[in-house]
Each structure stands twice: as C-alpha cells, then as structure tokens.
C-alpha cells in the first residue's frame, strides 16, 4: 500500500508532465478506440456463425439484385417443395424504394430510401431490433410502431436522424417522388421511430403499399406495366438453425427449377457482406495494420519520453533510495508503476468518455464503408482503453525503468560532488 502511495505521489509531483502525458494518452486512445470499434463491427458481421444464422438469397449474377416478386413466397419457404424438405425458421423479403421530398433539388438530406418489407418481420428479423433482445420499453415502443405499420398501409417507420433531416415528426405526412421506381410517387405517414442506434438513418415501409402501387401503374399508363414490375424483389433473408440446415436450404434453392430467369444464389449473410467489403480490403488493411499500430507506437513514444525525462531528472533520488535499502527490482516497479498508473488510468478514462460521447451524444460515428450508416463503440471497448494504456505504458517504461534500477550509487553521488 505504501508503495502504491509512493507511486501516486511521484505521479503528482510533476503535475504538468503527468497532465501532458495523460492528455496525450487520452487523445491517442480515443482514435484507437474509434478505429478498433469500426474493425470490431466489421469482423463481427463477417464472422461465420455456426448456429441461428441468417442466409440471403439474391440474384445470382447482377448487383443490385432484382428478382421478380413471384419468387418471394417460395424463397421465403427455402424452396421447400416436399413435406420432408427443410423450411427456414423465419424469413423476410426486402424491396428497396427510394424517393425524394424535393424532386426539383435532390440532396442527400431530402432523399429517403426505405426497405419495403413485411411489418411483422421488423421485430423478428432485422439485426439488433429483435423484440426479445431490446429493453422492455424499447420493445413496447417498437411493437406499437409495427402494429401501426400493419394497420396503415402507407405508414413508414423512420430513424431519428433521417426524420430530423427531412424535418418531420411522428404523425407527419409527406410525399416521396420515386427515384428508382420512376412515376411511383408515394404518400407516407410516419407511424414510428426506430430505437436509437443502427437504424438512425433507415426507414421501413409496408411492402403491400409498394406492390399495390406497382399493380395500379398500368391503369394510369395505357395498360403498360411499370418497367421494373418484374424486378421488384431485391433480397430474401432466411433464418436457419445451423450450418447444416443452411447447406440443405442452399441446395434446395440452387436445385429448384423455379429460379432460372434470373438465377439466384443463397449465401450466409456474413459471406455476402464479406464479398461487399472486399472492395474496401486495402482500406481496412491500412486501418488495421498501419493506422492503429502507428498510433499505439506514438503513444508508447509519448509515455517513454515522459518517463525517461523523469528518470533522468531523478537519478539522485534513485541513488538515495538504493542507499536506503530499496532493491533494484523495487525501483523498477516504482518507475513502471508510475507509467502504468498514468497510462491505464487515462486510457480507461478516455474509452469511457469516447463511449459516452460517440454513443450517447453524437449518435454514432459516420465512416464511408459499405452500406453501414453509423458505427458505435461497443461496451467492451471500455476495457480496451485500460489495456492499451497499460500495455503501451509498460512498453514505453521498461527501458527507462531498467536504467533507473541499474543506477550506480557512487556514480550518481560523484556527479553531484
């Protein structure tokens, strides 16, 4: 305990140096936490799960995938044709509808893209929105929004940030001029808001509304079908219990004669996302192996610099400690302890602050990788700060501490003399 107090005293002795080192550590840990949070999220979404996994069915060759809506029912059943065939645990279909509130001046702010899907699947199939995993208050709120979306065919659930961008509130009505579905302009009523987080910029509409509008198109266009009428189904999501079930469903789909024009492919969600992320391979590599290590190295240098200055200034003090009976190991621990206390403390403080700032205040951090709206700091990142601070402090202080412990008493005193 006395030893710890001595370490604390030493940290407080040169307050300016300790403060500068702490601030340096905090800002650098902040950047590492941001970088690692993005990489952690990408690693998680591309890691193959072994159970309760999701599969996606898309057009085999082309992106964006555009399949006829007639594929929806059978694909949702995993192309099961016989009673013995395996059926997915759950499924959801996605059709993308994009439109603008101001067709005369399209901007990123007034453009809204919505997933047209079955309302009841919002709470069972959308990642991070499963009603069973949300807090009771959020789950109740989402349940009410889903019920309203089922009830009102022209309803739409929108993320908080997107809602603010289009200057609308719950209950407001607005019209979107179709962008991808030309001449399909739809009027919406905001019936719900997504819980804060991943869906802040997203929107979900009732798929029946889009399909009914497409069905009605020929009536106002001399009997002509909409040009995209046979290409409205973009994705089908399937939930399967395990990898074996996935393989069975995948085979059922690939061998089915129903999906020939266009052909389809079934892959795990993680594999699909990994293919998309392949385009960012070099950028991700750079973040993982250049940016993060360089910051960690800078951090080690800042700490090493501060500790070695401190050791040089206290040569006489260490000599006195040796005379008083301190063993070299104890002096080494004393110096390393100072660095570790400073590093780990500021690292921990930094990640707690980062977590609060990014998740609670800023609502995530935007980074232009793939289709992910915003990235959030995971809860375990709080320990990253502690670990980063501790390890970089250790790395930075080992050499100065060793120098301090190896000090020769006679040499130190002779210089004074």
């Amino acid at each position, binding site marked *: 305990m006395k030893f710890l107090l001595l370490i604390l005293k030493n940290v407080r002795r040169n307050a300016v140096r300790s403060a500068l*080192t702490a601030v*340096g550590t905090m*800002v650098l840990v902040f950047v590492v936490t941001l970088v690692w949070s993005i990489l952690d999220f990408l690693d998680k979404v591309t890691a193959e799960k072994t159970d309760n996994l999701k599969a996606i069915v898309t057009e085999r060759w*082309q992106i964006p995938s555009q399949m006829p809506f007639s594929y929806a029912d059978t694909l949702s059943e995993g192309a099961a044709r016989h009673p013995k065939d395996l059926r997915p645990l759950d499924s959801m279909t996605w059709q993308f509808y994009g439109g603008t509130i101001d067709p005369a001046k399209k901007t990123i702010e007034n453009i809204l893209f919505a997933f047209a899907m079955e309302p009841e699947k919002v709470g069972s199939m959308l990642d991070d929105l499963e009603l069973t995993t949300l807090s009771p208050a959020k789950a109740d709120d989402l349940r009410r929004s889903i019920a309203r979306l089922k009830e009102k065919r022209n309803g739409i659930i929108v993320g908080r940030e997107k809602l603010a961008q289009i200057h609308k509130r719950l209950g407001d009505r607005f019209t979107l001029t179709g962008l991808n579905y030309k001449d399909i302009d739809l009027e919406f009523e905001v019936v719900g808001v997504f819980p804060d987080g991943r869906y802040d910029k997203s929107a979900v509409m009732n798929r029946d509304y889009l399909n009914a509008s497409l069905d009605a198109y020929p009536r106002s266009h001399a009997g002509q079908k909409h040009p995209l009428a046979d290409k409205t189904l973009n994705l089908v999501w399937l939930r399967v219990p395990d990898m074996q079930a996935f393989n069975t469903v995948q085979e059922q789909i690939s061998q089915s004669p129903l999906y020939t024009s266009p052909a389809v492919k079934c892959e795990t969600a993680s594999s699909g996302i990994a293919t998309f992320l*392949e*385009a*960012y391979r070099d950028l991700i590599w750079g973040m993982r192996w250049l940016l993060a290590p360089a910051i960690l190295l800078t951090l080690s*240098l800042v700490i090493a610099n501060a500790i*070695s200055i401190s050791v040089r*200034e206290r040569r006489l003090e260490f000599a006195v400690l040796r005379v008083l009976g301190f063993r070299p190991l104890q002096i080494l621990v004393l110096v390393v302890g100072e660095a570790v206390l400073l590093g780990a403390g500021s690292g921990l403080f930094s990640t707690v602050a980062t977590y609060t700032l990014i998740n609670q205040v800023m609502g995530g951090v935007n980074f232009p990788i793939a289709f992910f709206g915003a990235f959030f700091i995971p809860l375990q990142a709080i320990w990253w700060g502690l670990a980063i601070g501790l390890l970089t402090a250790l790395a930075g202080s080992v050499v100065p501490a060793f120098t301090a412990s190896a000090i020769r008493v006679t040499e130190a005193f002779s210089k004074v003399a």
Partner: protein
Amino acid sequence: MKTAQTILLAAADSQTAVWIAGAAALILLACLLFGVKVPLRYLVRNLTVRWRTTLMTALAFVLVISLLTVMMAFVNGMYRLTQASGQPGNVMVLADGATDESFSNLVAPDMADIENQPGILRENGRPLCSRETYLVVTQPIENPIPGRPQRRFLQLRGLDDSALAGRVHGLELYPQGRWISEAGVREPAPNDAALAGRERAAQPLIEAVLGEGVAHVLAADKKRQSKSAPSPERLDVGDTFSLGDRRWIVVGVLKSAGSTFDSEIWAKRGMIGPMFGKDTYSSLVLRTAGPTEARRLKEFFNSQYKKAAVLAQVETDYFDNLSGTNRQFLFAIGFVTVVMAVGGVMGVMNTMFAAVSNRVKDIGVLRLMGYSRSQIMLAFLLESLLIAMAGGALGCALGSLVDGWTATSIVSGAAGGGKFVVLRLSVDLQTLLLGFVLALAMGVLGGLIPAFTAVRLKPLEALR
C-alpha cells in the same frame, strides 16, 4: 460537429490554403533563424546532448506525418481517378431521375433520336456517340484464398461499338490488342494453347477488352492456380477467364490507368445484356466539339428536349459527383490527424519543459550576457521547430514511399451508386507541404508554452 467538418474539409481541400500556410511557415523559420542571436550551434548541441529524448520526440513526429502522408495519398488517388475519368467535351445522358449509371434505363428508340440532335460531333457521317449498358456482376473467384470471400464484384460495360466507345472516352489499347468484333464472340481455335480441351468444345468465347487494373486483379487468380509456372502480372490478349457460366477471352487491354475505366470489362452489349438480364441501355455518351458546346448540349437536353425524359450531365461533372466518398474520407483523415497531432504536441511539450527545467542556469547566464527575453524565447521555439522539421521531413520521406502503390476502393456520390476502383496512391508536392506545415505547427504549439516559461525566469534567481 458540422462546423468542424466544414473547417477541416475546407482546410484540406483548399490548395491555396496549404500554399499560404507553407509560405507562412517558411517565413517564420527564416525569421527565427536570422532573428535568434543565440548561436544555432548551441541549440543543436542541446538537442544532441539529450539525443534519446530528441529522438523519441522526433519519432512521434515521423509517425504522425508519415501516416498523414499515406492517408492523403489514398484520397489524392481517389480524387485523381474521378478527375481523370471524364472528358470535358462529353455529355452523358441517363434516364431522368437516375442518380447513377447503375439505376438508369434508356430504350433504343430514344437513343436514336438523341444521337441525331445538333451539336454532336460526327465522324464519317456517324455521330460520335457511345451506347452503353453498365452492370455490376458477381464473379465466383476461381482460386479463392482460404478465409477470404469466394466472390467478387466486377464491372461490365456492354457496348454496341467498342472502337467508337474508345474514341469517345479517349482511350486506347495496348499494342497487340484489338477492339471487340461485330459478333462479340470468338470460336475457340483448335490449337488455342490457352484453352483446355473441354473449353475448346464448349460455346464460343465472349470477347472482352479489359481495363488494366482489372486485368491485374484477374491475373492474381491464375497466379494462385499455377504457383510453379511463371504467370503474367496481368491478363493479356489471348488469356481467358470465367464469368456468368461462360468463358471469356481477352482481345485487348485498355491504357486506362488512373481512370475508373481501369476497373471495367468491356464486351458486346448484345451478349451481356441478355446474359445478365439487363435489356436496356444505361447511358449514352455524346462527344461534342469542346467544354462550352458540351454545357450547351447538356442544357438543351435538360430544359428543351421533350421526346424522352432524360438527365444530361457533362461527363466531368458526373465523375466529380462521385467524389462524395472522397470528401468523407478527407474529413476522417483530417480528424484523425488533428487528434494524433494533439498527442504529438503533448510529447514535444514534455520534451521542451524538460529542456527548460534542465537549463535554468543556462538561461540565467544567457540573460546576464545580455540576451533579451524574446531572444531566449525564440531560441527555445527554434529548438522545438528543429525537432519538428527533422521529424516532419523524415515523416514526409517515409510516407512518400507509398507513392504509386495500388489499392482498391469505391468511389460514390451522395445519392448512391458508385464504382469499384483500383486506384494509385499519389503523394504530390501539396501533400508533402501539408505534412511539413503540420509538423511545424505541432512544433510551434508544443514549444510555445515551455518557451514562455523560460522567459519568465529571473536571471539571478535562475543562477541561485
């Protein structure tokens, strides 16, 4: 947050600002070098005496500046790509409402009418127009690396006349290559060394002209296939690859480095349209006499032309709009750099504070010798700047090693769409200057407060 973003983007985006900052930094350096009466040798000696501290501080600068240089090289590469991809005299016509080529659908009768409008250059009586269908398709990778994705996305451009498209886009082929034939396919020759027996007997090969970048990407599959045999760095004329259940044969490679066409595969539209289920055109690219004529033609299509609902853009504007991702990256880089620089500044401050406290007696002597407070302050500032200069210069040198490296990415605009690209990292003079200015700024910020502390010392007290 938005204000910070605007300031950072404006600062990094503005060439003039970087040059002004560079000039200001050089003037400051010159003033310090000539204004400081304390011998430079004394300052350098102080740095070399405590070389470990100096080295560690300078190393922190090296890391920050070299990272900035690498990150800026990446964004520069993206900007160069989007800037070099369009012809200022070309007008690109998409379907009205389409925010990108991927979402555009134009039909043949409309194209014929558009092509015959006045203002479009003609060659031997034919309008210089390229009808194009742009597709992004999935290709199963032939020899995937274990643990890596099994598929990749490839960009296909279906053309009615590839030679004409080459002229419209200002692209040429490498020697030995030729443009795609009228049929768009080629029967495998019986003695075709590149093909296995099974392939010779199968359907005709689809002719393809490859961008240089994608030719490198596809060659990597072959390299993994035959590790023992020497493989070319890129696919070349006569090489084959698989895509969409068919074998394709390379008939030409585009001199396309530095443009988005570098990552594209060109083929006959009549072949790939039905094959991948796109029966419409994505765009029509029209060649005019020059930039002014192109703007005039664009205006005509957007405001006066009523026969078809189209959206015309000058080609350079279209590619400029694909810089949305670049700007986001630029902001991210600015943010990371500023935060890292703060860390670096803390390191310099530590070093300089230690320098001041170690030399309290020196300061006293210098004051008694007649050096003024401001001269002593400038001396400490210069010392900090010398570390910054050394670290900054080394950081720039280290960072510039990535110049010319290639990387994959996506360029896209605000309204979706975009292109998968192979880009070349580019370290230009402006980037180096930016790195050097940032290093000097860090040096000034890190040295200023300790220098003020030094001048507040009273000579006699310092000597006591």
